[in-house]
């Protein structure tokens, strides 16, 4: 029965990217949640988690920034916070780990929280989950398959998870626990969800390869090479679409797909869509509703041909 499912109502931490370049991910995540009867309550007055940059100034500031968000979830009475962005998800998980294992992190967090005048977060109070955990757990494949209105049947998808969803392993203690749990070496939650929506997932060896997101602008030639490798490999595996679950990966793939064409003269045709956009359309939502028009890459013609949107 539905009633015993977890995560029906969770705190929602969109993060900075989902308010600007990754707005399509925000819109499609909310639309899918609404369609499936799940409640998302946005964290009140949240702040940036520190992304991939603040740790290079000092890692403990990143721990503090993430812990402040966890303390807000706790204040709001939630024991679960859902973050669709890999960076946010990773950093909240890392804060949880560091505050459980490193005294110096605990001390700095207590000091900064005290001076900033809010509750000091203590580990164990709030669980951080990804949008993939959320949909897999709160709804599940069977329910998704039952509710599909426009099956993704015949759509060949390469599922791309990037770096921060699985690495480093020690901050994800719930992964690699055998059948049913997520794998850090070969993640499959997105594959499972999209397969339930009718998609044909291709065997894709670069699921957890790096798109160079941290240096998307500061070392763009390296990023373009890494992205081009991901795009051409997906095409070689027979994929028409790369499904993403991180705004940094998504924007990185789109940005460097265009850059590879303009700078290296290497054109690739594989479409790049958030998994929530694909799932939303399978559930009967329009392409506009899941904000396909907001992506930097243009998939509208392709989706029409597939009878979606």
């Amino acid at each position: 029965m539905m009633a015993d499912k977890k995560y029906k109502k969770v705190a929602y931490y969109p993060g900075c990217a989902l308010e600007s370049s990754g707005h399509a991910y925000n819109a499609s995540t909310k639309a899918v949640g609404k369609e499936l009867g799940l409640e998302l309550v946005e964290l009140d007055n949240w702040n940036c988690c520190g992304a991939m940059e603040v740790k290079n100034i000092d890692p403990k500031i990143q721990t503090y920034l993430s812990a402040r968000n966890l303390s807000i979830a706790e204040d709001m009475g939630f024991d679960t916070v859902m973050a669709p962005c890999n960076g946010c998800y990773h950093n909240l998980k890392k804060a949880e780990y560091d505050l459980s294992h490193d005294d110096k992190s605990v001390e700095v967090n207590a000091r900064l929280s005290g001076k900033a005048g809010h509750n000091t977060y203590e580990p164990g109070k709030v669980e951080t989950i990804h949008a993939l955990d959320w949909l897999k757990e709160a709804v599940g494949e069977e329910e998704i398959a039952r509710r599909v209105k426009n099956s993704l049947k015949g759509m060949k998808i390469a599922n791309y998870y990037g770096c921060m969803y699985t690495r480093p392993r020690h901050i994800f203690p719930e992964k690699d626990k055998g059948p049913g749990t997520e794998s850090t070496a070969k993640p499959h939650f997105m594959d499972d969800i999209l397969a339930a929506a009718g998609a044909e997932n291709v065997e894709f060896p670069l699921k957890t390869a790096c798109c160079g997101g941290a240096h998307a602008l500061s070392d763009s030639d390296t990023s373009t090479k890494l992205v081009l490798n991901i795009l051409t490999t997906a095409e070689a595996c027979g994929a028409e679409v790369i499904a993403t679950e991180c705004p940094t990966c998504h924007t990185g793939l789109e940005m460097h797909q265009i850059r590879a064409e303009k700078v290296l003269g290497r054109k690739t045709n594989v479409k790049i869509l958030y998994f929530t956009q694909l799932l939303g359309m399978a559930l009967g939502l329009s392409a506009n509703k899941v904000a396909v028009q907001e992506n930097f890459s243009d998939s509208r013609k392709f989706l029409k041909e597939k009878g979606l949107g």
Partner: protein
Amino acid sequence: MPIHEKSLIRPEKLVEHEHLVIEGMDVSGHWSTFIEGRSLTDYNEAMQDEIAALPGGENIHRCWQCGSCTNACTVNAINPEFNPRYWIYLIRLGMEEELLRDKDIIWQCVSCNKCTYACPRDVVPEAVMKATAHWLELKGHTPKSPSMIFDEGFSDQVFHSGKIEDSLVLRNFFKATGQPLTQPWLVAMVTGLIKRFPVFYLIRLGLLTLFHPKTKRWGKARAAIHEYVEECETANRKALGLDAKGAE
């Protein structure tokens, strides 16, 4: 070519004979490459401790040189000169001069954490790379890398407002590094979007330029973070035997 990681050997120390006969045995071809011996006297004995004192460098002493990091490395796959195992080796031995030969690429670590995933000794090579890049900059061996310029600009925005707005991060970074915003790929990216949905896009772009996102009641957190950042900077410089910033 029988010498593994030949690129790590100084070219002038490599001796290759086209024809070589040793004790009547013809060893031309495959077995005729030799490395001339050398003795080193110039070690920087403080280097490992200094890098270990910077955030992320703490576990460098645990490395037992298995090479899993380099084998897993994303950047190594596109540039064989990018070799975390080798750099950790040089740092641990104090071979500063050798390390400095690669000083301009160490910052290129993309933080994918494949090394950290593979490392059997919890060295956290990703963090060691960041600490090493930081050390090179603080010691004045390299100018501030594009990566550090980006990280600082990004972090300043977070510390100041509690949130970032990514088009502002992009514009500030391009300005700080003297790159024009009119690069063909960037123009293509934005015009493609505008063509599709001009009104919505222009309104949102306009709003974001006028009202940068920020966390409310952030003042105390901002002050606390700034104070802590200053404390970290002082501690880092002290660990490297440098004067306090701006003291000279």
